[in-house]
């Protein structure tokens, strides 16, 4: 049992985790701009609103019951109970199960930002056609019944995947696979946008896409390096591998598009950077810099290929959330089972390339469990919501655009 000395608040660690929470917060509006630039002009504001609204909604859900379900006292190794409802007992002293050198509320608010951005990632799949009211109810249910238990499985010391030995430093399974798989389910259940496959649906503002991707890259340092929960060597390592994988993802995707379409794509470079960031997320606290080069490269190739395969299927995952987050997250989780090394993090484990093939098997179990939980759960929630509120807007509303039809506000006055 740890003595009281190990629960002393460290000002450096606390400052870093709070700053990281703010960095991760920025990622959600950044995602709004990334997605907002990729949609047509008539849906720009409604797409940005998805992310901005979720920032507010989940901030409240998390302090009421979300944090308790995710990190509260364990029940059956599956979910936390409601003992910490309303942050009851979640105070300013450290919690030795999660972070021994920062106030418990600092850990709570850092985790809040992960809970915020995860459902926001899904919105790219149903952009330009989901009814706002249906989106609101869906998001609240999804966060409560999909995200919160999944976070418990992986990050609570009593969660079953945690106890199995699954490695997920910053959310490859919890954040990216869950949102990516849920995204493809949303796309399938909602159906294609009007005119999909018949008319061009080009991004309306590429500058906004690049700005959004750049801010995501910036915020991701909080996401990954902040997950060290301390300001030291592990955070530094996570910071360096995060930047390297993102850079390699951008270079690789851009090169792939240059090869296939004869020109280096700007949107491709932005998407590649995001794919690299997604893939390094679960691995960021366990792999060395050379590992991150390979992971960034793999993410660029695999996610680029996934986008093109999706195009052949005619499934309208509008902004390719599944290809980037679902496939990228799966690749990253499995790559962690290849490249993890205890020379980076003694609390982690070795992967296949460092003499421990079992880790890859554990990662496979974690990936499969996340796919099933997120996929089935999202389908059930969508069907449930559809009983009370139609998921899609009417045809006339979709033609008009969601900015005006759902919010009564056009994005641009000119």
């Amino acid at each position: 049992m740890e003595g009281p000395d190990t629960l002393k608040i460290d000002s450096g660690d606390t400052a870093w985790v709070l700053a990281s929470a703010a960095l991760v917060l920025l990622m959600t509006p950044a995602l709004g701009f990334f997605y907002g630039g990729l949609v047509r002009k008539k849906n720009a504001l409604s797409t940005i609103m998805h992310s901005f609204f979720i920032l507010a909604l989940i901030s409240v859900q998390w302090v009421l019951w979300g944090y308790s379900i995710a990190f509260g006292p364990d029940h059956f190794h599956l979910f936390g109970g409601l003992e910490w409802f309303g942050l009851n007992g979640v105070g300013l002293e450290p919690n030795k199960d999660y972070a021994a050198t920062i106030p418990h509320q600092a850990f709570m608010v850092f985790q809040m930002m992960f809970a915020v951005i995860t459902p926001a990632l899904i919105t790219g799949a149903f952009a330009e056609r989901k009814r706002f009211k249906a989106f609101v109810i869906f998001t609240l249910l999804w966060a409560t019944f999909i995200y919160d238990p999944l976070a418990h499985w992986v990050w609570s010391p009593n969660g079953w995947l945690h106890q199995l030995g699954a490695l997920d430093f910053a959310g490859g399974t919890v954040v990216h696979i869950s949102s990516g798989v849920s995204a493809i389910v949303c796309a399938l259940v909602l159906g294609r946008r009007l005119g999909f496959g018949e008319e061009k649906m080009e991004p309306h503002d590429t500058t906004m896409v690049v700005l959004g991707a750049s801010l995501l890259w910036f915020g991701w340092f909080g996401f990954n390096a902040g997950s060290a929960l301390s300001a030291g060597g592990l955070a530094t390592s996570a910071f360096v591998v995060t930047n390297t994988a993102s850079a390699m993802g951008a270079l690789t995707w851009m090169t792939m598009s240059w090869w296939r379409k004869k020109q280096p794509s700007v949107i491709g470079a932005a998407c590649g950077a995001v794919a690299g960031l997604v893939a390094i997320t679960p691995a960021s606290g366990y792999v060395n810099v050379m590992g991150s080069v390979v992971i960034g490269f793999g993410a660029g190739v695999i996610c680029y290929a996934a986008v093109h395969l999706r195009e052949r299927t005619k499934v309208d995952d509008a902004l390719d959330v599944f290809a980037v987050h679902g496939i990228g997250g799966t690749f990253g989780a499995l790559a962690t089972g290849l490249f993890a090394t205890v020379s980076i993090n003694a609390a982690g484990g070795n992967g296949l390339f460092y003499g421990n093939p079992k880790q890859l098997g554990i990662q496979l179990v974690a990936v499969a469990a996340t796919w099933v939980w997120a996929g089935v759960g999202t389908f059930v929630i969508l069907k449930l919501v559809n009983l009370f509120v139609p998921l899609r807007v009417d045809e006339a509303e979709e033609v008009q655009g969601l900015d005006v039809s759902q919010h009564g506000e056009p994005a641009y006055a000119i």
Partner: protein
Amino acid sequence: MDITTVLAVISSAAVFLAWFVLPSKGVAAPPAVELPQAGLAQEIAA
């Protein structure tokens, strides 16, 4: 050199070397889009 470093060198070399053989000439721009006239321009045109 461990296997991770070998893979990193191969993958980064694949990307860097590809740039030597990829097209260097631009592709012809699509025809300019004629913007709809509005406001004063519309009045002048009328």
